[in-house]
Protein backbone atom coordinates (compact mmCIF):
# COMPACT_ATOMS: atom_id res chain seq x y z
CA UNK A 1 0.00 0.00 0.00
CA UNK A 2 1.30 3.44 -0.85
CA UNK A 3 1.29 6.32 1.64
CA UNK A 4 -1.41 7.99 -0.43
CA UNK A 5 -3.62 4.90 -0.28
CA UNK A 6 -3.12 4.62 3.48
CA UNK A 7 -4.00 8.29 3.99
CA UNK A 8 -7.08 7.95 1.82
CA UNK A 9 -8.23 4.85 3.72
CA UNK A 10 -7.49 6.53 7.05
CA UNK A 11 -9.46 9.70 6.34
CA UNK A 12 -12.31 7.84 4.62
CA UNK A 13 -13.25 5.68 7.61
CA UNK A 14 -11.98 7.84 10.49
CA UNK A 15 -15.27 9.53 11.54
CA UNK A 16 -17.34 6.36 11.32
CA UNK A 17 -14.77 4.19 13.14
CA UNK A 18 -14.28 6.68 15.98
CA UNK A 19 -18.01 7.09 16.42
CA UNK A 20 -18.48 3.29 16.37
CA UNK A 21 -15.60 2.60 18.80
CA UNK A 22 -16.84 5.29 21.17
CA UNK A 23 -20.33 3.83 21.14
CA UNK A 24 -19.46 0.12 21.33
CA UNK A 25 -16.49 0.22 23.72
CA UNK A 26 -17.35 3.39 25.67
CA UNK A 27 -14.08 4.98 24.58
CA UNK A 28 -13.24 8.67 24.77
CA UNK A 29 -12.28 10.51 21.58
CA UNK A 30 -8.52 10.15 22.14
CA UNK A 31 -8.73 6.44 23.04
CA UNK A 32 -10.95 5.80 20.01
CA UNK A 33 -8.45 7.64 17.80
CA UNK A 34 -5.56 5.60 19.25
CA UNK A 35 -7.52 2.41 18.60
CA UNK A 36 -8.23 3.51 15.03
CA UNK A 37 -4.55 4.24 14.35
CA UNK A 38 -3.55 0.85 15.80
CA UNK A 39 -6.16 -0.83 13.59
CA UNK A 40 -4.82 0.97 10.52
CA UNK A 41 -1.25 -0.10 11.36
CA UNK A 42 -2.31 -3.75 11.71
CA UNK A 43 -4.44 -3.52 8.54
CA UNK A 44 -1.52 -2.10 6.51
CA UNK A 45 0.85 -4.72 7.90
CA UNK A 46 -1.50 -7.53 6.93
CA UNK A 47 -2.13 -6.14 3.46
CA UNK A 48 1.60 -5.79 2.87
CA UNK A 49 2.31 -9.40 3.79
CA UNK A 50 -0.64 -10.54 1.67
CA UNK A 51 -2.65 -11.88 4.59
CA UNK A 52 -5.85 -10.04 3.72
CA UNK A 53 -7.85 -11.03 0.71
CA UNK A 54 -9.36 -7.74 -0.34
CA UNK A 55 -11.27 -9.46 -3.13
CA UNK A 56 -13.20 -11.47 -0.54
CA UNK A 57 -13.93 -8.69 1.93
CA UNK A 58 -14.00 -4.90 1.78
CA UNK A 59 -11.34 -2.81 3.59
CA UNK A 60 -13.81 -1.30 6.10
CA UNK A 61 -15.03 -4.77 7.07
CA UNK A 62 -11.47 -5.85 7.87
CA UNK A 63 -10.71 -2.53 9.53
CA UNK A 64 -13.66 -2.75 11.88
CA UNK A 65 -12.92 -6.43 12.61
CA UNK A 66 -9.31 -5.57 13.49
CA UNK A 67 -10.49 -2.67 15.63
CA UNK A 68 -12.92 -4.94 17.45
CA UNK A 69 -10.20 -7.53 18.10
CA UNK A 70 -7.76 -4.91 19.36
CA UNK A 71 -10.40 -3.41 21.64
CA UNK A 72 -11.30 -6.81 23.05
CA UNK A 73 -7.61 -7.62 23.53
CA UNK A 74 -7.18 -4.41 25.53
CA UNK A 75 -10.17 -5.26 27.62
CA UNK A 76 -8.68 -8.67 28.33
CA UNK A 77 -5.28 -7.14 29.09
CA UNK A 78 -7.01 -5.06 31.71
CA UNK A 79 -6.03 -1.78 30.18
CA UNK A 80 -9.67 -0.74 30.32
CA UNK A 81 -12.02 -1.17 33.24
CA UNK A 82 -15.15 -1.76 31.19
CA UNK A 83 -17.14 -4.65 32.61
CA UNK A 84 -17.92 -7.40 30.06
CA UNK A 85 -21.64 -7.15 30.73
CA UNK A 86 -21.52 -3.58 29.46
CA UNK A 87 -20.67 -4.89 26.02
CA UNK A 88 -23.15 -6.05 23.46
CA UNK A 89 -23.50 -9.84 23.39
CA UNK A 90 -23.04 -9.70 19.67
CA UNK A 91 -19.60 -8.16 20.09
CA UNK A 92 -18.35 -10.77 22.49
CA UNK A 93 -19.71 -13.72 20.58
CA UNK A 94 -18.06 -12.79 17.29
CA UNK A 95 -15.52 -15.46 16.42
CA UNK A 96 -12.24 -13.72 15.78
CA UNK A 97 -8.65 -14.71 15.13
CA UNK A 98 -7.89 -13.19 18.48
CA UNK A 99 -5.20 -15.62 19.59
CA UNK A 100 -3.18 -15.13 16.44
CA UNK A 101 -3.57 -11.37 16.65
CA UNK A 102 -2.61 -11.36 20.32
CA UNK A 103 0.46 -13.47 19.65
CA UNK A 104 1.62 -11.14 16.89
CA UNK A 105 0.88 -8.01 18.84
CA UNK A 106 2.75 -9.41 21.84
CA UNK A 107 5.76 -10.13 19.69
CA UNK A 108 5.63 -6.63 18.22
CA UNK A 109 5.37 -5.24 21.73
CA UNK A 110 8.51 -7.15 22.78
CA UNK A 111 10.39 -5.85 19.76
CA UNK A 112 9.28 -2.26 20.39
CA UNK A 113 10.40 -2.53 24.01
CA UNK A 114 13.68 -4.13 23.02
CA UNK A 115 14.36 -1.44 20.42
CA UNK A 116 13.65 1.25 23.00
CA UNK A 117 16.37 -0.19 25.25
CA UNK A 118 19.05 0.00 22.56
CA UNK A 119 21.25 3.07 22.17
CA UNK A 120 20.51 5.44 19.28
CA UNK A 121 23.45 4.11 17.29
CA UNK A 122 22.50 0.49 17.90
CA UNK A 123 18.94 1.19 16.82
CA UNK A 124 20.13 3.07 13.76
CA UNK A 125 22.46 0.31 12.56
CA UNK A 126 19.62 -2.22 12.92
CA UNK A 127 17.26 0.06 11.03
CA UNK A 128 19.71 0.70 8.22
CA UNK A 129 20.52 -2.96 7.71
CA UNK A 130 17.25 -4.78 8.32
CA UNK A 131 14.73 -2.16 7.26
CA UNK A 132 16.48 0.02 4.69
CA UNK A 133 18.53 -2.96 3.47
CA UNK A 134 21.74 -0.95 3.19
CA UNK A 135 25.05 -2.73 2.57
CA UNK A 136 27.62 -2.85 5.37
CA UNK A 137 29.91 -0.60 3.30
CA UNK A 138 27.15 2.02 3.03
CA UNK A 139 26.39 1.76 6.73
CA UNK A 140 30.08 2.16 7.61
CA UNK A 141 30.24 5.29 5.51
CA UNK A 142 26.95 6.73 6.82
CA UNK A 143 27.72 6.05 10.49
CA UNK A 144 31.42 6.83 10.43
CA UNK A 145 32.80 3.34 11.09
CA UNK A 146 36.31 2.55 9.93
CA UNK A 147 35.18 -0.09 7.44
CA UNK A 148 32.42 -2.59 6.60
CA UNK A 149 33.84 -5.23 8.96
CA UNK A 150 33.63 -2.90 11.94
CA UNK A 151 30.07 -1.96 10.99
CA UNK A 152 29.20 -5.65 10.66
CA UNK A 153 30.57 -6.37 14.12
CA UNK A 154 28.51 -3.51 15.55
CA UNK A 155 25.40 -4.78 13.80
CA UNK A 156 25.97 -8.23 15.26
CA UNK A 157 26.37 -6.85 18.78
CA UNK A 158 23.23 -4.71 18.39
CA UNK A 159 21.14 -7.58 17.07
CA UNK A 160 22.39 -9.85 19.87
CA UNK A 161 21.39 -7.28 22.49
CA UNK A 162 17.98 -6.89 20.90
CA UNK A 163 17.45 -10.65 20.76
CA UNK A 164 18.36 -10.89 24.44
CA UNK A 165 15.89 -8.14 25.32
CA UNK A 166 13.20 -9.89 23.33
CA UNK A 167 13.90 -13.15 25.07
CA UNK A 168 15.38 -14.96 22.15
CA UNK A 169 18.85 -14.88 23.66
CA UNK A 170 20.10 -17.80 21.66
CA UNK A 171 21.51 -16.31 18.53
CA UNK A 172 22.03 -18.71 15.70
CA UNK A 173 25.50 -20.20 15.94
CA UNK A 174 27.12 -23.48 15.24
CA UNK A 175 28.18 -25.78 18.02
Amino acid at each position, binding site marked *: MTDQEIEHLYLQHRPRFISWAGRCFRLGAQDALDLYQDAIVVFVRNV*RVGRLDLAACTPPTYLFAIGRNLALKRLRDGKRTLAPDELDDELLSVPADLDELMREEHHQYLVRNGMARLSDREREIIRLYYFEERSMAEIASMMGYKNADVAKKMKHVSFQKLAEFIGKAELPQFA
Partner: protein
Amino acid sequence: MSGDGDGWDMLEAFHEGRLSDAERVMLEERLRTDTALAERLANYRDTRRAIEQGFADEQVRAMLKGVEQRCAEDGHRIDHEVRSLLLEVERREAGRLRRSHRLRWSIAAAVIGVLAVGAWWLLRPKELPRLAAEFGVQEAPLPVFMSAERSSRVVLDEAMQAYDMGHDAEALDLLADLSASDTVLFYTALVRMRTGQDAAAELDAIIARPGSPYQAKALYHRMILAMRNSDAALAERLWRIQLAVPRHPYHDRLEELAAETGWKP
Protein backbone atom coordinates in the same frame (compact mmCIF):
# COMPACT_ATOMS: atom_id res chain seq x y z
CA MET B 1 32.60 -23.20 11.69
CA SER B 2 32.43 -22.08 15.23
CA GLY B 3 32.06 -18.97 17.34
CA ASP B 4 29.35 -16.38 17.34
CA GLY B 5 30.47 -14.51 14.28
CA ASP B 6 30.88 -17.38 11.87
CA GLY B 7 27.69 -19.27 12.67
CA TRP B 8 25.62 -16.16 12.84
CA ASP B 9 26.97 -14.84 9.57
CA MET B 10 26.35 -18.17 7.91
CA LEU B 11 22.70 -18.35 8.94
CA GLU B 12 22.08 -14.73 8.03
CA ALA B 13 23.76 -15.29 4.66
CA PHE B 14 21.59 -18.39 4.21
CA HIS B 15 18.45 -16.38 5.02
CA GLU B 16 19.47 -13.64 2.59
CA GLY B 17 20.40 -16.13 -0.18
CA ARG B 18 24.06 -15.14 -0.20
CA LEU B 19 25.56 -18.62 0.21
CA SER B 20 27.23 -20.53 -2.58
CA ASP B 21 25.38 -23.62 -3.80
CA ALA B 22 27.80 -25.92 -1.95
CA GLU B 23 27.47 -24.00 1.34
CA ARG B 24 23.70 -23.86 1.01
CA VAL B 25 23.38 -27.60 0.39
CA MET B 26 25.62 -28.34 3.38
CA LEU B 27 23.64 -26.08 5.68
CA GLU B 28 20.31 -27.46 4.49
CA GLU B 29 21.61 -30.92 5.30
CA ARG B 30 22.54 -29.83 8.84
CA LEU B 31 19.19 -28.12 9.35
CA ARG B 32 17.42 -31.38 8.54
CA THR B 33 19.23 -33.24 11.32
CA ASP B 34 20.09 -30.55 13.88
CA THR B 35 16.78 -29.48 15.42
CA ALA B 36 18.44 -26.97 17.75
CA LEU B 37 20.02 -25.23 14.78
CA ALA B 38 16.72 -25.26 12.90
CA GLU B 39 15.05 -23.70 15.94
CA ARG B 40 17.72 -21.00 16.14
CA LEU B 41 17.17 -20.21 12.47
CA ALA B 42 13.41 -19.97 13.09
CA ASN B 43 14.02 -17.63 16.04
CA TYR B 44 16.33 -15.51 13.95
CA ARG B 45 13.73 -15.26 11.19
CA ASP B 46 10.94 -14.40 13.66
CA THR B 47 13.00 -11.66 15.25
CA ARG B 48 14.14 -10.27 11.94
CA ARG B 49 10.57 -10.21 10.63
CA ALA B 50 9.41 -8.47 13.80
CA ILE B 51 12.17 -5.87 13.45
CA GLU B 52 11.21 -5.16 9.85
CA GLN B 53 7.53 -4.95 10.77
CA GLY B 54 8.29 -2.78 13.77
CA PHE B 55 10.03 -0.17 11.62
CA ALA B 56 7.32 -0.38 8.96
CA ASP B 57 4.68 0.13 11.68
CA GLU B 58 6.62 3.11 13.03
CA GLN B 59 6.64 4.62 9.57
CA VAL B 60 2.86 4.21 9.23
CA ARG B 61 2.29 5.66 12.73
CA ALA B 62 4.46 8.67 11.90
CA MET B 63 2.52 9.20 8.69
CA LEU B 64 -0.85 9.00 10.50
CA LYS B 65 0.43 11.47 13.08
CA GLY B 66 1.30 13.83 10.23
CA VAL B 67 -2.16 13.41 8.72
CA GLU B 68 -3.77 14.19 12.08
CA GLN B 69 -1.60 17.26 12.51
CA ARG B 70 -2.45 18.50 9.03
CA CYS B 71 -6.16 17.87 9.61
CA ALA B 72 -6.01 19.78 12.90
CA GLU B 73 -4.31 22.72 11.23
CA ASP B 74 -6.79 22.67 8.34
CA GLY B 75 -9.63 22.31 10.83
CA HIS B 76 -8.51 25.36 12.81
CA ARG B 77 -8.14 27.40 9.65
CA ILE B 78 -11.52 26.28 8.33
CA ASP B 79 -13.16 26.89 11.72
CA HIS B 80 -11.76 30.39 11.66
CA GLU B 81 -12.99 31.02 8.13
CA VAL B 82 -16.42 29.59 8.88
CA ARG B 83 -16.76 31.71 12.00
CA SER B 84 -15.77 34.81 10.01
CA LEU B 85 -18.27 33.83 7.37
CA LEU B 86 -21.08 33.35 9.87
CA LEU B 87 -20.27 36.69 11.49
CA GLU B 88 -20.38 38.32 8.09
CA VAL B 89 -23.75 36.71 7.32
CA GLU B 90 -25.12 37.94 10.65
CA ARG B 91 -23.80 41.43 10.01
CA ARG B 92 -25.35 41.47 6.56
CA GLU B 93 -28.73 40.34 7.82
CA ALA B 94 -28.67 42.91 10.62
CA GLY B 95 -27.71 45.55 8.09
CA ARG B 96 -30.58 44.56 5.86
CA LEU B 97 -33.00 45.21 8.75
CA ARG B 98 -31.65 48.70 9.37
CA ARG B 99 -31.57 49.74 5.72
CA SER B 100 -30.57 53.33 5.97
CA HIS B 101 -30.84 55.77 3.11
CA ARG B 102 -27.08 55.69 2.73
CA LEU B 103 -27.08 51.90 2.55
CA ARG B 104 -29.66 51.92 -0.21
CA TRP B 105 -27.43 54.21 -2.24
CA SER B 106 -24.50 51.91 -1.57
CA ILE B 107 -26.48 48.91 -2.70
CA ALA B 108 -27.62 50.75 -5.79
CA ALA B 109 -24.03 51.66 -6.56
CA ALA B 110 -22.99 48.04 -6.03
CA VAL B 111 -25.77 46.84 -8.34
CA ILE B 112 -24.65 49.28 -11.01
CA GLY B 113 -21.12 48.00 -10.56
CA VAL B 114 -22.29 44.44 -10.95
CA LEU B 115 -24.23 45.38 -14.08
CA ALA B 116 -21.10 46.87 -15.52
CA VAL B 117 -19.07 43.69 -14.98
CA GLY B 118 -21.16 41.63 -17.41
CA ALA B 119 -24.52 40.24 -18.26
CA TRP B 120 -23.68 36.78 -16.96
CA TRP B 121 -23.36 38.18 -13.46
CA LEU B 122 -27.00 39.20 -13.73
CA LEU B 123 -28.07 35.83 -14.99
CA ARG B 124 -26.05 33.80 -12.53
CA PRO B 125 -28.26 34.12 -9.42
CA LYS B 126 -31.26 33.05 -11.48
CA GLU B 127 -29.43 29.86 -12.45
CA LEU B 128 -28.35 28.96 -8.95
CA PRO B 129 -31.62 27.29 -7.83
CA ARG B 130 -31.49 25.07 -10.88
CA LEU B 131 -27.88 24.13 -10.11
CA ALA B 132 -28.85 23.55 -6.47
CA ALA B 133 -31.39 20.97 -7.62
CA GLU B 134 -28.85 19.41 -9.96
CA PHE B 135 -25.99 19.25 -7.43
CA GLY B 136 -28.03 18.40 -4.34
CA VAL B 137 -26.98 15.12 -2.72
CA GLN B 138 -29.34 12.51 -1.33
CA GLU B 139 -27.38 11.28 1.71
CA ALA B 140 -27.64 7.62 2.69
CA PRO B 141 -29.08 6.87 6.13
CA LEU B 142 -26.69 5.73 8.86
CA PRO B 143 -25.93 2.02 8.78
CA VAL B 144 -26.41 0.03 11.97
CA PHE B 145 -23.24 -1.78 12.92
CA MET B 146 -24.08 -3.34 16.21
CA SER B 147 -27.19 -4.02 18.16
CA ALA B 148 -27.80 -1.68 21.06
CA GLU B 149 -29.97 -1.72 24.10
CA ARG B 150 -30.16 1.99 24.68
CA SER B 151 -33.49 3.49 23.70
CA SER B 152 -31.94 6.59 22.09
CA ARG B 153 -30.14 4.31 19.67
CA VAL B 154 -33.39 2.55 18.81
CA VAL B 155 -35.08 5.92 18.16
CA LEU B 156 -32.19 6.91 15.92
CA ASP B 157 -32.48 3.63 14.01
CA GLU B 158 -36.20 4.25 13.50
CA ALA B 159 -35.50 7.80 12.39
CA MET B 160 -32.98 6.49 9.86
CA GLN B 161 -35.53 4.00 8.53
CA ALA B 162 -38.17 6.74 8.22
CA TYR B 163 -35.61 8.98 6.51
CA ASP B 164 -34.67 6.17 4.14
CA MET B 165 -38.30 5.48 3.22
CA GLY B 166 -39.07 9.18 2.69
CA HIS B 167 -41.41 9.43 5.69
CA ASP B 168 -40.15 12.93 6.37
CA ALA B 169 -42.68 14.05 9.01
CA GLU B 170 -42.10 10.89 11.03
CA ALA B 171 -38.32 11.21 10.69
CA LEU B 172 -38.46 14.82 11.94
CA ASP B 173 -40.63 13.81 14.91
CA LEU B 174 -38.23 11.03 15.88
CA LEU B 175 -35.13 13.19 15.47
CA ALA B 176 -36.75 15.89 17.58
CA ASP B 177 -36.93 13.41 20.46
CA LEU B 178 -33.15 13.00 20.50
CA SER B 179 -30.47 15.27 21.94
CA ALA B 180 -28.96 17.60 19.37
CA SER B 181 -25.82 15.65 18.42
CA ASP B 182 -24.11 16.33 15.11
CA THR B 183 -25.81 13.26 13.62
CA VAL B 184 -29.25 14.39 14.72
CA LEU B 185 -28.67 17.95 13.48
CA PHE B 186 -27.34 16.70 10.16
CA TYR B 187 -30.25 14.42 9.36
CA THR B 188 -32.75 16.98 10.64
CA ALA B 189 -31.22 19.47 8.20
CA LEU B 190 -31.43 16.95 5.36
CA VAL B 191 -35.11 16.23 5.99
CA ARG B 192 -35.91 19.92 6.30
CA MET B 193 -34.11 20.67 3.04
CA ARG B 194 -35.88 17.78 1.32
CA THR B 195 -39.22 19.20 2.37
CA GLY B 196 -38.32 22.71 1.21
CA GLN B 197 -37.76 24.14 4.69
CA ASP B 198 -34.91 26.31 5.91
CA ALA B 199 -32.14 24.21 7.45
CA ALA B 200 -29.54 26.96 7.90
CA ALA B 201 -29.63 26.88 11.71
CA GLU B 202 -28.86 23.15 11.93
CA LEU B 203 -26.14 23.26 9.29
CA ASP B 204 -24.49 26.36 10.76
CA ALA B 205 -24.46 24.70 14.18
CA ILE B 206 -22.57 21.71 12.74
CA ILE B 207 -20.18 23.92 10.78
CA ALA B 208 -19.35 25.91 13.89
CA ARG B 209 -18.41 22.77 15.87
CA PRO B 210 -14.66 22.11 15.56
CA GLY B 211 -13.80 18.60 14.47
CA SER B 212 -17.34 17.56 13.60
CA PRO B 213 -17.29 14.49 11.31
CA TYR B 214 -20.17 16.04 9.36
CA GLN B 215 -18.47 19.39 8.83
CA ALA B 216 -17.50 18.90 5.16
CA LYS B 217 -20.97 17.61 4.22
CA ALA B 218 -22.66 20.35 6.25
CA LEU B 219 -20.64 22.96 4.35
CA TYR B 220 -21.72 21.37 1.10
CA HIS B 221 -25.42 21.31 1.97
CA ARG B 222 -25.20 24.86 3.36
CA MET B 223 -23.81 25.89 -0.02
CA ILE B 224 -26.67 24.12 -1.81
CA LEU B 225 -29.12 25.94 0.48
CA ALA B 226 -27.50 29.29 -0.33
CA MET B 227 -27.73 28.44 -4.05
CA ARG B 228 -31.36 27.51 -3.64
CA ASN B 229 -31.93 30.94 -2.06
CA SER B 230 -29.96 32.58 -4.92
CA ASP B 231 -27.39 33.89 -2.45
CA ALA B 232 -24.49 33.77 -4.89
CA ALA B 233 -21.92 35.48 -2.67
CA LEU B 234 -22.49 33.15 0.27
CA ALA B 235 -22.60 30.07 -1.98
CA GLU B 236 -19.34 31.00 -3.67
CA ARG B 237 -17.65 31.72 -0.34
CA LEU B 238 -18.75 28.34 1.03
CA TRP B 239 -17.54 26.66 -2.16
CA ARG B 240 -14.13 28.29 -1.73
CA ILE B 241 -13.86 27.19 1.92
CA GLN B 242 -14.61 23.61 0.91
CA LEU B 243 -11.72 23.55 -1.54
CA ALA B 244 -9.39 23.65 1.47
CA VAL B 245 -11.09 20.67 3.14
CA PRO B 246 -8.80 17.65 2.71
CA ARG B 247 -10.43 14.60 1.11
CA HIS B 248 -13.74 16.33 0.75
CA PRO B 249 -16.32 13.62 -0.03
CA TYR B 250 -17.86 15.79 -2.76
CA HIS B 251 -14.64 17.12 -4.20
CA ASP B 252 -15.62 16.04 -7.75
CA ARG B 253 -19.00 17.75 -7.47
CA LEU B 254 -17.30 20.95 -6.30
CA GLU B 255 -15.11 20.89 -9.39
CA GLU B 256 -18.10 20.25 -11.66
CA LEU B 257 -19.96 23.08 -9.98
CA ALA B 258 -17.04 25.42 -10.67
CA ALA B 259 -17.27 24.53 -14.35
CA GLU B 260 -20.98 25.45 -14.34
CA THR B 261 -20.72 28.65 -12.34
CA GLY B 262 -17.32 29.94 -13.40
CA TRP B 263 -16.18 30.18 -9.77
CA LYS B 264 -12.41 30.44 -9.45
CA PRO B 265 -10.37 29.23 -6.44
